[in-house]
Protein backbone atom coordinates (compact mmCIF):
# COMPACT_ATOMS: atom_id res chain seq x y z
CA UNK A 1 0.00 0.00 0.00
CA UNK A 2 0.95 3.65 -0.22
CA UNK A 3 2.45 4.90 3.03
CA UNK A 4 2.00 8.52 4.03
CA UNK A 5 2.71 10.64 7.03
CA UNK A 6 0.72 13.61 8.22
CA UNK A 7 2.34 16.99 7.60
CA UNK A 8 3.31 19.09 10.62
CA UNK A 9 0.22 20.80 11.97
CA UNK A 10 1.75 24.25 11.61
CA UNK A 11 2.25 23.72 7.88
CA UNK A 12 -1.29 22.40 7.45
CA UNK A 13 -2.82 25.25 9.42
CA UNK A 14 -0.89 27.88 7.47
CA UNK A 15 -2.28 26.47 4.24
CA UNK A 16 -5.94 26.49 5.35
CA UNK A 17 -6.26 29.29 7.90
CA UNK A 18 -7.70 31.76 5.40
CA UNK A 19 -10.56 29.55 4.35
CA UNK A 20 -14.05 30.05 5.72
CA UNK A 21 -15.59 26.71 4.87
CA UNK A 22 -13.09 23.93 5.07
CA UNK A 23 -13.74 20.28 4.34
CA UNK A 24 -11.25 17.80 5.78
CA UNK A 25 -11.55 14.84 3.45
CA UNK A 26 -10.12 11.47 4.46
CA UNK A 27 -9.44 8.40 2.37
CA UNK A 28 -10.51 4.95 3.51
CA UNK A 29 -7.83 2.90 1.81
CA UNK A 30 -4.01 3.08 2.16
CA UNK A 31 -3.81 6.14 4.40
CA UNK A 32 -6.39 4.64 6.75
CA UNK A 33 -4.25 1.53 7.20
CA UNK A 34 -1.08 3.56 7.79
CA UNK A 35 -3.04 5.83 10.14
CA UNK A 36 -2.24 9.06 8.34
CA UNK A 37 -5.50 10.09 6.73
CA UNK A 38 -8.44 7.87 7.63
CA UNK A 39 -11.64 8.77 9.45
CA UNK A 40 -9.95 8.90 12.86
CA UNK A 41 -7.15 11.16 11.66
CA UNK A 42 -9.71 13.40 9.94
CA UNK A 43 -11.50 13.78 13.27
CA UNK A 44 -8.33 14.66 15.17
CA UNK A 45 -7.08 17.11 12.55
CA UNK A 46 -10.49 18.79 12.17
CA UNK A 47 -10.63 19.32 15.92
CA UNK A 48 -7.07 20.64 15.97
CA UNK A 49 -8.02 23.17 13.29
CA UNK A 50 -11.15 24.14 15.25
CA UNK A 51 -9.08 24.66 18.40
CA UNK A 52 -6.34 26.61 16.60
CA UNK A 53 -8.90 28.78 14.80
CA UNK A 54 -10.68 29.40 18.11
CA UNK A 55 -7.43 30.62 19.64
CA UNK A 56 -6.67 32.78 16.60
CA UNK A 57 -10.11 34.31 16.65
CA UNK A 58 -10.54 32.92 13.14
CA UNK A 59 -13.85 31.63 11.92
CA UNK A 60 -13.25 28.48 9.94
CA UNK A 61 -16.28 26.28 9.61
CA UNK A 62 -14.79 22.81 9.51
CA UNK A 63 -16.66 19.78 8.20
CA UNK A 64 -15.39 16.23 8.03
CA UNK A 65 -15.93 13.44 5.56
CA UNK A 66 -14.12 10.27 4.56
CA UNK A 67 -14.68 8.31 1.38
CA UNK A 68 -13.56 4.79 0.53
CA UNK A 69 -10.99 5.86 -2.06
CA UNK A 70 -10.00 9.29 -3.29
CA UNK A 71 -8.27 7.86 -6.35
CA UNK A 72 -11.48 6.43 -7.86
CA UNK A 73 -14.25 8.63 -9.23
CA UNK A 74 -16.96 6.13 -8.33
CA UNK A 75 -16.45 6.76 -4.62
CA UNK A 76 -17.17 10.47 -4.91
CA UNK A 77 -20.88 9.94 -4.32
CA UNK A 78 -23.56 12.60 -4.03
CA UNK A 79 -22.90 13.24 -0.34
CA UNK A 80 -19.17 13.73 -0.85
CA UNK A 81 -19.68 15.88 -3.96
CA UNK A 82 -22.09 18.17 -2.15
CA UNK A 83 -19.69 18.68 0.74
CA UNK A 84 -16.80 19.38 -1.62
CA UNK A 85 -18.81 21.91 -3.62
CA UNK A 86 -20.06 23.66 -0.47
CA UNK A 87 -16.50 24.12 0.82
CA UNK A 88 -14.17 26.86 -0.35
CA UNK A 89 -11.17 24.65 0.45
CA UNK A 90 -10.65 20.95 0.78
CA UNK A 91 -7.89 19.57 2.97
CA UNK A 92 -7.24 16.14 1.54
CA UNK A 93 -5.69 13.50 3.75
CA UNK A 94 -5.42 11.17 0.78
CA UNK A 95 -2.06 10.55 -0.86
CA UNK A 96 -0.80 12.78 -3.66
CA UNK A 97 -3.00 10.83 -6.07
CA UNK A 98 -6.12 11.69 -4.08
CA UNK A 99 -5.30 15.40 -3.97
CA UNK A 100 -4.81 15.56 -7.74
CA UNK A 101 -7.89 13.50 -8.41
CA UNK A 102 -10.08 15.92 -6.44
CA UNK A 103 -8.55 18.82 -8.40
CA UNK A 104 -9.39 17.01 -11.63
CA UNK A 105 -12.97 16.22 -10.60
CA UNK A 106 -13.76 19.58 -8.98
CA UNK A 107 -11.71 22.22 -10.84
CA UNK A 108 -13.23 25.15 -8.92
CA UNK A 109 -12.28 23.94 -5.47
CA UNK A 110 -8.99 24.79 -3.76
CA UNK A 111 -7.36 21.57 -2.52
CA UNK A 112 -4.55 21.37 0.03
CA UNK A 113 -2.52 18.29 0.90
CA UNK A 114 -2.53 17.16 4.53
CA UNK A 115 -0.04 14.32 4.25
CA UNK A 116 3.40 13.73 2.81
CA UNK A 117 3.17 10.66 0.59
CA UNK A 118 6.19 8.48 1.31
CA UNK A 119 6.49 5.09 -0.39
CA UNK A 120 4.94 1.69 -1.19
CA UNK A 121 5.38 -0.29 1.96
CA UNK A 122 4.32 -3.01 4.33
CA UNK A 123 3.18 -2.93 7.93
CA UNK A 124 5.95 -4.45 10.07
CA UNK A 125 3.83 -4.05 13.18
CA UNK A 126 1.12 -1.60 14.17
CA UNK A 127 2.79 1.79 14.00
CA UNK A 128 5.79 0.75 11.90
CA UNK A 129 5.76 0.78 8.10
CA UNK A 130 8.68 0.16 5.82
CA UNK A 131 9.49 0.51 2.13
CA UNK A 132 9.24 -2.64 0.03
CA UNK A 133 8.65 -1.47 -3.54
CA UNK A 134 9.94 1.47 -5.54
CA UNK A 135 7.44 1.14 -8.39
CA UNK A 136 10.31 0.96 -10.87
CA UNK A 137 8.06 -0.40 -13.63
CA UNK A 138 10.01 -3.59 -14.35
CA UNK A 139 9.93 -6.08 -11.50
CA UNK A 140 13.22 -7.89 -10.81
CA UNK A 141 12.06 -9.89 -7.77
CA UNK A 142 12.33 -13.18 -9.64
CA UNK A 143 16.07 -12.67 -10.05
CA UNK A 144 16.58 -12.01 -6.34
CA UNK A 145 14.13 -14.56 -4.93
CA UNK A 146 11.71 -12.02 -3.57
CA UNK A 147 13.98 -9.42 -2.00
CA UNK A 148 14.09 -6.18 -3.98
CA UNK A 149 17.51 -4.53 -4.26
CA UNK A 150 15.97 -1.50 -5.97
CA UNK A 151 13.70 -0.61 -3.07
CA UNK A 152 15.62 -2.04 -0.15
CA UNK A 153 19.28 -1.38 -0.98
CA UNK A 154 20.17 2.23 -0.23
CA UNK A 155 22.15 2.35 -3.47
CA UNK A 156 19.74 0.17 -5.47
CA UNK A 157 22.70 -2.03 -6.41
CA UNK A 158 22.01 -4.81 -8.88
CA UNK A 159 25.31 -6.49 -8.02
CA UNK A 160 25.86 -6.10 -4.31
CA UNK A 161 26.69 -5.87 -1.56
CA UNK A 162 28.82 -2.76 -1.25
CA UNK A 163 31.42 -2.16 1.45
CA UNK A 164 28.87 -0.52 3.70
CA UNK A 165 27.24 -3.76 4.79
CA UNK A 166 28.13 -4.58 8.37
CA UNK A 167 26.58 -7.26 10.58
CA UNK A 168 23.64 -7.45 8.21
CA UNK A 169 22.88 -3.76 8.49
CA UNK A 170 23.27 -0.89 6.02
CA UNK A 171 25.77 1.87 6.77
CA UNK A 172 23.20 4.50 5.83
CA UNK A 173 21.15 3.66 8.92
CA UNK A 174 22.85 0.85 10.85
CA UNK A 175 20.23 0.87 13.59
CA UNK A 176 17.13 0.37 11.47
CA UNK A 177 17.94 -0.56 7.89
CA UNK A 178 18.88 -4.11 6.99
CA UNK A 179 21.34 -4.63 4.14
CA UNK A 180 19.20 -5.83 1.24
CA UNK A 181 22.12 -7.78 -0.16
CA UNK A 182 22.63 -9.62 3.13
CA UNK A 183 18.93 -10.50 2.97
CA UNK A 184 19.33 -11.67 -0.65
CA UNK A 185 22.36 -13.80 0.30
CA UNK A 186 20.55 -15.35 3.27
CA UNK A 187 17.53 -16.08 1.13
CA UNK A 188 19.59 -17.73 -1.63
CA UNK A 189 21.41 -19.81 0.96
CA UNK A 190 18.14 -20.96 2.49
CA UNK A 191 16.86 -22.00 -0.94
CA UNK A 192 20.19 -23.61 -1.93
CA UNK A 193 20.53 -21.19 -4.80
CA UNK A 194 23.77 -19.41 -3.89
CA UNK A 195 25.10 -20.15 -7.39
CA UNK A 196 22.45 -17.77 -8.72
CA UNK A 197 24.45 -14.95 -7.17
CA UNK A 198 27.36 -15.76 -9.52
CA UNK A 199 25.30 -14.40 -12.43
CA UNK A 200 26.19 -10.90 -13.50
CA UNK A 201 23.16 -8.63 -13.43
CA UNK A 202 23.14 -6.15 -16.32
CA UNK A 203 22.32 -2.49 -15.61
CA UNK A 204 18.64 -1.96 -15.05
CA UNK A 205 16.56 -0.45 -17.82
CA UNK A 206 15.27 2.67 -16.09
CA UNK A 207 13.07 3.71 -19.02
CA UNK A 208 10.16 1.92 -17.27
CA UNK A 209 10.69 4.02 -14.18
CA UNK A 210 10.00 7.75 -13.78
CA UNK A 211 12.94 8.41 -16.06
CA UNK A 212 10.65 7.63 -18.97
CA UNK A 213 8.29 10.44 -17.91
CA UNK A 214 4.84 10.10 -16.29
CA UNK A 215 3.50 6.59 -16.79
CA UNK A 216 0.08 5.16 -17.51
CA UNK A 217 -1.34 1.69 -17.97
CA UNK A 218 -4.22 0.85 -20.27
CA UNK A 219 -6.21 -2.35 -20.75
CA UNK A 220 -8.15 -2.43 -23.97
CA UNK A 221 -10.33 -5.35 -22.86
CA UNK A 222 -11.85 -3.51 -19.91
CA UNK A 223 -12.27 -0.11 -21.53
CA UNK A 224 -15.84 1.07 -22.09
Amino acid at each position, binding site marked *: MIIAEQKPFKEIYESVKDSEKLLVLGCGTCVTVCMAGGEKEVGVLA*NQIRLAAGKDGGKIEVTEHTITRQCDEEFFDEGASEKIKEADSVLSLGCGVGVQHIVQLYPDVVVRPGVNTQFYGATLQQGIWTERCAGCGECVLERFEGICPIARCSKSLMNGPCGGSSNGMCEVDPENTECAWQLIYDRMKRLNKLDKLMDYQPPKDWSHDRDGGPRSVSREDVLF
Partner: protein
Amino acid sequence: MESEAGEREPVIIAFCCHYCAFTAADLAGTMRQQYPTNIRIVRLPCTGKVYVNMLLEAFVDGADGVMVAGCEEGSCHFLEGNYRAKKRVNYAKQKIEEVGINPEKLEMYHIGASEGPLFARKAREFTERIRKLMQEENEPENQIQNEK
Protein backbone atom coordinates in the same frame (compact mmCIF):
# COMPACT_ATOMS: atom_id res chain seq x y z
CA MET B 1 -19.81 29.02 36.26
CA GLU B 2 -18.14 31.87 38.14
CA SER B 3 -16.27 32.01 41.44
CA GLU B 4 -17.15 34.46 44.20
CA ALA B 5 -14.40 36.74 42.87
CA GLY B 6 -16.15 36.82 39.51
CA GLU B 7 -13.57 34.64 37.74
CA ARG B 8 -14.76 31.90 35.45
CA GLU B 9 -14.53 28.53 37.12
CA PRO B 10 -12.70 25.84 35.15
CA VAL B 11 -14.70 23.07 33.57
CA ILE B 12 -12.88 19.77 33.91
CA ILE B 13 -13.81 16.51 32.28
CA ALA B 14 -12.57 13.34 33.99
CA PHE B 15 -12.69 10.16 31.95
CA CYS B 16 -12.68 7.43 34.60
CA CYS B 17 -12.58 3.68 34.17
CA HIS B 18 -15.44 1.75 35.73
CA TYR B 19 -13.32 -0.71 37.67
CA CYS B 20 -10.85 1.58 39.43
CA ALA B 21 -10.98 5.36 39.16
CA PHE B 22 -14.77 5.60 38.99
CA THR B 23 -15.08 3.25 41.95
CA ALA B 24 -12.51 5.41 43.75
CA ALA B 25 -14.56 8.52 42.97
CA ASP B 26 -17.64 6.75 44.29
CA LEU B 27 -15.71 5.77 47.42
CA ALA B 28 -14.50 9.34 47.86
CA GLY B 29 -18.14 10.36 48.06
CA THR B 30 -19.04 7.57 50.46
CA MET B 31 -16.10 8.61 52.65
CA ARG B 32 -17.33 12.22 52.60
CA GLN B 33 -14.10 13.31 50.91
CA GLN B 34 -14.43 16.74 49.36
CA TYR B 35 -13.33 17.43 45.83
CA PRO B 36 -14.21 20.35 43.55
CA THR B 37 -17.50 20.43 41.72
CA ASN B 38 -15.58 21.52 38.63
CA ILE B 39 -14.96 17.87 37.84
CA ARG B 40 -17.46 16.22 35.49
CA ILE B 41 -16.96 12.49 35.43
CA VAL B 42 -17.51 10.42 32.31
CA ARG B 43 -17.50 6.73 33.15
CA LEU B 44 -15.84 4.40 30.68
CA PRO B 45 -15.63 0.60 30.80
CA CYS B 46 -11.83 0.96 30.69
CA THR B 47 -9.44 3.82 29.92
CA GLY B 48 -8.45 1.67 26.93
CA LYS B 49 -11.70 3.04 25.47
CA VAL B 50 -10.13 6.50 25.34
CA TYR B 51 -9.17 7.61 21.85
CA VAL B 52 -7.24 10.73 20.97
CA ASN B 53 -10.16 12.54 19.36
CA MET B 54 -12.32 11.97 22.43
CA LEU B 55 -9.84 14.10 24.39
CA LEU B 56 -9.60 16.81 21.73
CA GLU B 57 -13.37 16.90 21.43
CA ALA B 58 -13.64 17.69 25.13
CA PHE B 59 -11.48 20.78 24.58
CA VAL B 60 -13.41 21.76 21.46
CA ASP B 61 -16.65 21.51 23.45
CA GLY B 62 -15.31 23.92 26.06
CA ALA B 63 -13.42 21.92 28.68
CA ASP B 64 -10.57 23.83 30.35
CA GLY B 65 -8.88 20.66 31.53
CA VAL B 66 -9.19 16.96 30.84
CA MET B 67 -8.05 14.17 33.11
CA VAL B 68 -8.01 10.49 32.33
CA ALA B 69 -8.02 8.23 35.38
CA GLY B 70 -7.45 4.53 35.06
CA CYS B 71 -6.35 1.57 37.13
CA GLU B 72 -2.95 1.41 38.79
CA GLU B 73 -0.19 0.21 36.49
CA GLY B 74 -0.27 -3.57 36.27
CA SER B 75 -3.81 -3.95 37.57
CA CYS B 76 -6.00 -3.02 34.61
CA HIS B 77 -9.14 -5.15 34.53
CA PHE B 78 -8.54 -5.54 30.81
CA LEU B 79 -4.81 -6.16 31.30
CA GLU B 80 -3.32 -3.21 29.43
CA GLY B 81 -6.06 -0.70 28.68
CA ASN B 82 -4.49 1.86 31.02
CA TYR B 83 -1.09 1.55 29.28
CA ARG B 84 -2.75 2.17 25.94
CA ALA B 85 -4.59 5.15 27.38
CA LYS B 86 -1.34 6.57 28.70
CA LYS B 87 0.22 6.43 25.22
CA ARG B 88 -2.83 8.08 23.71
CA VAL B 89 -2.89 10.79 26.36
CA ASN B 90 0.78 11.55 25.61
CA TYR B 91 -0.03 11.73 21.88
CA ALA B 92 -3.04 13.96 22.54
CA LYS B 93 -0.79 16.23 24.64
CA GLN B 94 1.37 16.74 21.53
CA LYS B 95 -1.73 17.44 19.47
CA ILE B 96 -3.08 20.12 21.80
CA GLU B 97 0.37 21.68 22.20
CA GLU B 98 0.51 22.04 18.40
CA VAL B 99 -2.60 24.22 18.49
CA GLY B 100 -1.33 26.37 21.34
CA ILE B 101 -3.00 24.71 24.33
CA ASN B 102 -0.75 24.01 27.30
CA PRO B 103 -0.30 20.21 27.45
CA GLU B 104 -0.48 20.44 31.24
CA LYS B 105 -4.21 20.83 30.75
CA LEU B 106 -4.42 17.13 29.98
CA GLU B 107 -3.24 14.49 32.42
CA MET B 108 -3.36 10.77 33.04
CA TYR B 109 -3.70 9.37 36.57
CA HIS B 110 -3.62 5.86 37.95
CA ILE B 111 -5.98 5.42 40.88
CA GLY B 112 -6.95 2.10 42.45
CA ALA B 113 -10.55 1.25 43.35
CA SER B 114 -9.85 1.51 47.09
CA GLU B 115 -8.14 4.90 46.84
CA GLY B 116 -11.06 7.29 47.36
CA PRO B 117 -8.92 9.88 49.19
CA LEU B 118 -6.31 9.75 46.40
CA PHE B 119 -8.99 10.45 43.79
CA ALA B 120 -10.20 13.43 45.81
CA ARG B 121 -6.62 14.71 46.20
CA LYS B 122 -5.81 14.35 42.48
CA ALA B 123 -9.10 16.05 41.59
CA ARG B 124 -8.23 18.96 43.88
CA GLU B 125 -4.65 19.20 42.57
CA PHE B 126 -5.72 19.07 38.94
CA THR B 127 -8.44 21.67 39.44
CA GLU B 128 -5.91 23.96 41.09
CA ARG B 129 -3.46 23.40 38.24
CA ILE B 130 -6.08 24.32 35.65
CA ARG B 131 -7.23 27.33 37.65
CA LYS B 132 -3.61 28.56 37.86
CA LEU B 133 -3.02 28.01 34.13
CA MET B 134 -6.19 29.92 33.31
CA GLN B 135 -5.08 32.80 35.54
CA GLU B 136 -1.66 32.84 33.85
CA GLU B 137 -3.30 32.97 30.42
CA ASN B 138 -5.46 35.87 31.52
CA GLU B 139 -2.54 37.96 32.73
CA PRO B 140 -2.15 41.02 30.46
CA GLU B 141 1.33 40.20 29.08
CA ASN B 142 0.28 36.65 28.22
CA GLN B 143 -2.86 37.89 26.55
CA ILE B 144 -0.73 39.99 24.22
CA GLN B 145 1.40 36.93 23.48
CA ASN B 146 -1.69 34.83 22.87
CA GLU B 147 -3.06 37.42 20.49
CA LYS B 148 0.20 37.38 18.55
